[in-house]
């Protein structure tokens, strides 16, 4: 019952000094708002990236040449390596080579730059590629080195004026040599080209062709990496080292290959996010500290201004505890209102900033609870000294105060 009365007194006091109280709250507001903004954007970004990863699959790793060692011709990854990984390693579900080459693609009307990805049929199962028209590469395409190609949707529209250009022919190659390939499928472009404007013109055609065909038309092409998908995420580490040992035994070399997976990338991402959050947390912490000192300052002023009131309350029977609670509730009320405004402001900021950086913010109950916890803690911590000062006042001295 008394708590409620003390709360009413606090509200009255705050309302009678609106501007002063608001200025006092600013530190808390800024601190809490920045925490809420960053935490919710961080959570949104994390979820988006996790979602992106889940599309590709977290049980995928890739084998590459290490770039800090000498590479001899015999060290390069080969189709035989891919074949062996598929056959020898029981935990491997799919394995696909990837060889990339920048080149040109020509129709009767247009010539465009193109990124050719030479790969095989398993690539469709491993990557997040979505075939929206036609089909992906199959075993025969690879075996025979067929002159077939898949291009991305946006390029299809650019080159042919419509999406479904399956069955059309296109010339591909480098500046001095072109070969005619038959389009067998159209893949989703993702959101690369949705950026629009001049940037869209810079983005080449994304094209998938059989690795064997790629080797025919681009004699200098190399397999830059092998994508491997295991049956389960738990097999990732073991399969990675097995694959490296297998390739090393096939090439009779050592320490020339490395593996990468999304889990380690995710860990790296989380680590960076963690550092970012810590830095922002520290800034917010300083802001809360400054805000708390502001509260302490204003509460000390309030205690002095209300010395007479404290004397009167003591004369009619208020104990130390009663006065203490009254002033503590006032400081907590100030910091809680500041916290609430901060949460609201943080929510708004996150939703304003979010679209610009393509992140849908996630405001978690936890973040709000933590914000409330911290504002209460600041209110109590910085309110205790002024409240104690008020509680200790000698009633005679306080009554005489004018």
């Amino acid at each position, binding site marked *: *019952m008394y708590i409620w009365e003390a709360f009413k007194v606090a509200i009255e006091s705050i309302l009678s000094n609106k501007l002063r109280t608001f200025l006092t709250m600013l530190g808390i507001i800024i601190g809490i708002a920045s925490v809420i903004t960053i935490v919710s954007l961080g959570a949104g970004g994390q979820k988006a990236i996790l979602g992106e990863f889940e599309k590709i699959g977290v049980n995928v790793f890739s084998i590459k040449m290490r770039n800090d060692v000498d590479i001899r011709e015999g060290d390069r990854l080969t189709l035989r390596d891919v074949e062996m990984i598929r056959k020898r390693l029981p935990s491997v579900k799919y394995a696909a080579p990837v060889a990339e080459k920048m080149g040109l693609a020509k129709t009767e009307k247009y010539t465009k730059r193109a990124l050719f990805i030479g790969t095989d049929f398993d690539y469709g199962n491993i990557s997040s590629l979505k075939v929206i028209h036609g089909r992906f590469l199959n075993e025969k395409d690879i075996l025979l080195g067929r002159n077939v190609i898949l291009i991305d949707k946006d390029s299809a529209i650019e080159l042919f004026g419509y999406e479904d250009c399956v069955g059309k022919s296109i010339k591909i190659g480098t500046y001095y040599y072109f070969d005619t390939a038959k389009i067998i499928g159209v893949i989703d472009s993702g959101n690369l080209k949705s950026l629009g404007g001049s940037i869209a013109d810079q983005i080449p055609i994304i094209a998938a062709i059989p690795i064997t065909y790629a080797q025919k038309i681009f004699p200098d092409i190399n397999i830059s990496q092998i994508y491997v998908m295991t049956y389960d995420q738990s097999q990732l580490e073991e399969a990675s080292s097995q694959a490296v040992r297998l390739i090393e035994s096939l090439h009779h070399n050592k320490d020339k290959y490395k593996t990468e997976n999304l889990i380690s990338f995710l860990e790296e991402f989380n680590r960076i996010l963690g550092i970012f959050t810590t830095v922002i947390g520290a800034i917010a912490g300083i802001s809360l500290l400054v805000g708390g000192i502001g509260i302490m300052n204003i509460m000390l002023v309030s205690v002095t201004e209300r010395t007479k009131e404290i004397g009167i309350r003591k004369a009619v*029977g208020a104990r130390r505890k009663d006065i203490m609670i009254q002033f503590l509730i006032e400081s907590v009320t100030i910091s809680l209102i500041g916290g609430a405004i901060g949460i609201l402001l943080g929510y708004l900021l996150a939703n304003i900033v979010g679209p610009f950086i393509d992140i849908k913010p996630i405001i978690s109950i936890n973040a709000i609870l933590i914000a409330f916890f911290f504002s209460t803690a600041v209110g109590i911590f910085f309110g205790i000294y002024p409240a104690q000062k008020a509680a200790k006042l000698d009633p005679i001295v306080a*009554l005489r105060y004018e």
Partner: protein
Amino acid sequence: MVELEGIKKVYSLGKVQVEALKGVSLKIDKGEYVAIVGPSGSGKSTLMNIIGLLDRPTAGSYKLNGVEVSTLSDDQLAYLRNRQIGFVFQSFNLLHRLNALANVELPMLYAKIPSRERRERALKALEIVGLSDRIYHKPNELSGGQQQRVAIARAIVMNPSFLLADEPTGNLDTASSIEIMKIFHQLNEAGTTIIMVTHEQDIANHAKRIVRLRDGLIVEDSLVSNRITY
């Protein structure tokens, strides 16, 4: 009811020791109406603070309703002030942000009396002092006499053992002073014990008994012969 025995109070002002009370013994019974008078510096304010449990004596014994109170803790004193003593001050000492009703309710808040009962009792106390039509007025919307009546309502609302008034008419004009003295008279007639500190002889003459202090000692303790009554 109030039993003071050899009460001394020494203040230290730097190196100088000032003896405000030099051994005061005084007994006040239930139903009395006592005026404590004396010139400034006589120690009457100090005595009032001690009787009002706002201050502790340096030496001597103070029994309130048979209980020794000179050695109690601050919180115990606050408890007794709340239940046993009703203060009326010269400058009214009302809380400016609260209306008359809330001011009267204040002591009951610290006695943890439920809000409905608080309101009922506050309304009744305001009726006794004749302010039923001003309960939602704030102190600055009331005249001095009316403010003092709110203070009296606040003082009597806890049914204390006695009313302790410190120069209750010091800030009031004559008409208002008479009003307040009338209320004191009525309260005393109804059985309320009143202890009043004043330096005005004609205000003191409203009491039944006068205790005169000089230089920290009681120099006179007599019944009032030419008492002013209403």
